[in-house]
């Protein structure tokens, strides 16, 4: 039973700000993922939790115990590295038993615990092997067993799957989740891979340049991004700079009208925006649908543009449309994607959802972000 609490945790390397004012509460048994681009401070945060890096400022608490300045061995944590980091001169069994043996537990207990752990990670009978005689995925599973054997308070993972191939990653990420659920350990997991974060987390912390951008569930950060960074980093998005023209009505039925310098967008719902305010408007590509003549559906927004190209991706197709001098992306699925293959010229698009984020940026520019592809390594 362990909660983790970070308050204003900060790490500077000389003039480099690696992590700044990091605040997070992790509930007991929760699986929280730190997600962000390369160099945003994920590893640094995790290593401060482990005691491998001393913070420049702030406090870290496990339950009510302050651990900010404790050595790693006094924290009772389990750290899984990017590489399995198995001790190459010890057998698998000795690796798993290492944490117990340095604490002076007796041999019989260690042997029994090692067997239990091998069982837990589906590696019965592999105890006598040396790490070099295992595959990469098996090694990472041994690393997991080694960490669980000591019954740690908190599990810390630093991109444990990034060195493995895609198939293995897919199966192993669910094994990790399953083991975490089974052992009910509080877990903090670092990755730059969105699909991984979405697949296994209870909550996701999106980080950028050493700071937290947003903390929330998958649906929170996908559907209600609070900053332009989150809107552009998570998934694909069409972003438009605009200005609020008017707010009609009030409460849940309020309609915000936004002028993006060529398009007038409407969004229904409660709002705190006021006319004249600069905003970034984001429309998810999958929210855009192609309207046929005589289509009965009614949308809050309808825009018209010229088809630039269609990228057929199998299950879905990306339609690139030029609308009022701006390229927008619409993801089309179902039968309609086939009909579009031959299509050229003008097209009408309808959508209801627009995410509006206040911005100080200048109006008139636009971006299409495709999110970070799952396969990408740490981006350059």
């Amino acid at each position, binding site marked *: 039973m362990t909660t983790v609490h970070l308050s204003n945790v900060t790490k500077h390397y000389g003039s480099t700000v690696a992590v700044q004012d990091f605040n997070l509460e992790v509930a007991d048994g929760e699986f929280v993922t730190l997600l962000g681009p390369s160099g945003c401070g994920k590893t640094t945060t995790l290593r401060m939790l482990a005691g*491998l890096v001393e913070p420049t400022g702030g406090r870290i608490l496990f339950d009510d115990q302050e651990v900010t300045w404790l050595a*790693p*061995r006094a924290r*009772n944590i389990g750290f899984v*590295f990017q*590489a399995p980091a198995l001790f190459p001169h010890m057998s698998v069994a000795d690796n798993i038993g*290492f944490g117990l043996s*340095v604490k002076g537990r007796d041999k019989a207990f260690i042997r029994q615990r090692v067997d239990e752990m091998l069982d837990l990670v589906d590696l019965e009978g592999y105890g006598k092997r040396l790490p070099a005689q295992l595959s990469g995925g098996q090694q990472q599973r041994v690393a997991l067993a080694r*960490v669980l054997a*000591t019954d740690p308070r908190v599990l810390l993972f630093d991109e444990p799957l990034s060195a493995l191939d895609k198939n293995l990653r897919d199966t192993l990420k669910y094994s990790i989740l399953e083991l975490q659920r089974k052992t009910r350990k509080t877990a903090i997991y670092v990755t730059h891979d969105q699909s991984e974060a979405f697949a296994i987390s209870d909550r996701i912390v999106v980080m950028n340049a050493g700071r937290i951008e947003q903390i929330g569930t998958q649906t929170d950060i996908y559907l209600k991004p609070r900053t332009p960074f989150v809107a552009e980093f998570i998934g694909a998005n069409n972003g438009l700079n605009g200005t609020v023209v008017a707010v009609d009505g009030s409460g849940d039925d309020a309609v915000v009208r936004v002028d993006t310098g060529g398009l007038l967008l409407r969004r229904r719902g409660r709002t705190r925006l006021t006319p004249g305010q600069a905003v970034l408007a984001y429309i998810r590509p999958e929210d855009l649908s192609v309207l046929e003549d005589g289509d009965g559906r009614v949308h809050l927004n309808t825009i018209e543009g010229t088809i630039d190209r269609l990228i057929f991706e199998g299950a879905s197709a990306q339609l690139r449309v030029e609308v009022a001098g701006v390229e927008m992306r619409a993801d089309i699925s179902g039968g309609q994607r086939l009909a579009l293959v031959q299509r050229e010229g003008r097209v009408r698009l309808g959508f209801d959802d627009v995410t509006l984020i206040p911005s100080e940026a200048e109006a008139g520019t636009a971006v299409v972000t495709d999110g970070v592809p799952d396969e990408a390594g740490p981006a350059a």
Partner: protein
Amino acid sequence: MSAASTPRRRPLLSSRRLATIASHAYIWLCLILFVLPFLALLSQSLGQRGGASGLGNYAAVFGSFGDNLFWSFKITGLTLLIDLAACLPAAYALVRYPVPGKRLLFSLLQLPLYVPGAVIGLSLLLTYTFVYKIDSMWGLVLAMAVGSFPLMMTPIVVAMKDLPVMFEEASECLGATKWQTYRRIVFPLIGPGVSAGLLLCFIIVFNEYLVTLFVHPPALETAPLKVFNLVRTNGLAPTTAALAVTMQLISFLAVIVFFRIFGTRHFKGTYIL
């Protein structure tokens, strides 16, 4: 379909074969050149002069020269221990901690390698007689340690540098103390570096006579010093040659033993081997 082309005959001396023959010849030439002096010494050691002959010369090695060999082993053993005790912590600190002026320090520590043995011997002799008045074997042991520790230091530092810090971090996260981590993780994994250092130091210290000449206490004569003194006064007597051959064999044996122990069983599958 018929394959009517005549099979191409393999040339008797293709360029590849020539290269193979040349490289074998080169290896053998080197071997002969290196082994020749040893063989000369060996035949001399089996020669006859004044009574004893043949293998009888070797009986003398363990009889009258037994003391010299004993001192050689003792001095060498103690020197290795001091070298190890000094170099293991020093190498760890030098690689793992941000020691200011790391590079310069490491270069300075290499200095004894470039200083001629006679200079080391002389300067230590001066230091000892005028400052410490050490007149036991410890003066000699210290002199040997000073002269040889870079040979121990360098391979250990290299092995430390090659060892990813990740293993130590993993160990500490699993609850091990610094000392447990060093003993159970670091030391075994830098083992090949340590063994290389031990081997180098053993060979150099065991056969060293120049430094010994300056700082040995009167009652103590190591085997190489004995050979030197005997050759200087008597020329190369067969018994002296036998002592020299024995020393050669011991050095050779050391190499074999070290490679047996450290080169195979213990360190198979480790990071370095």
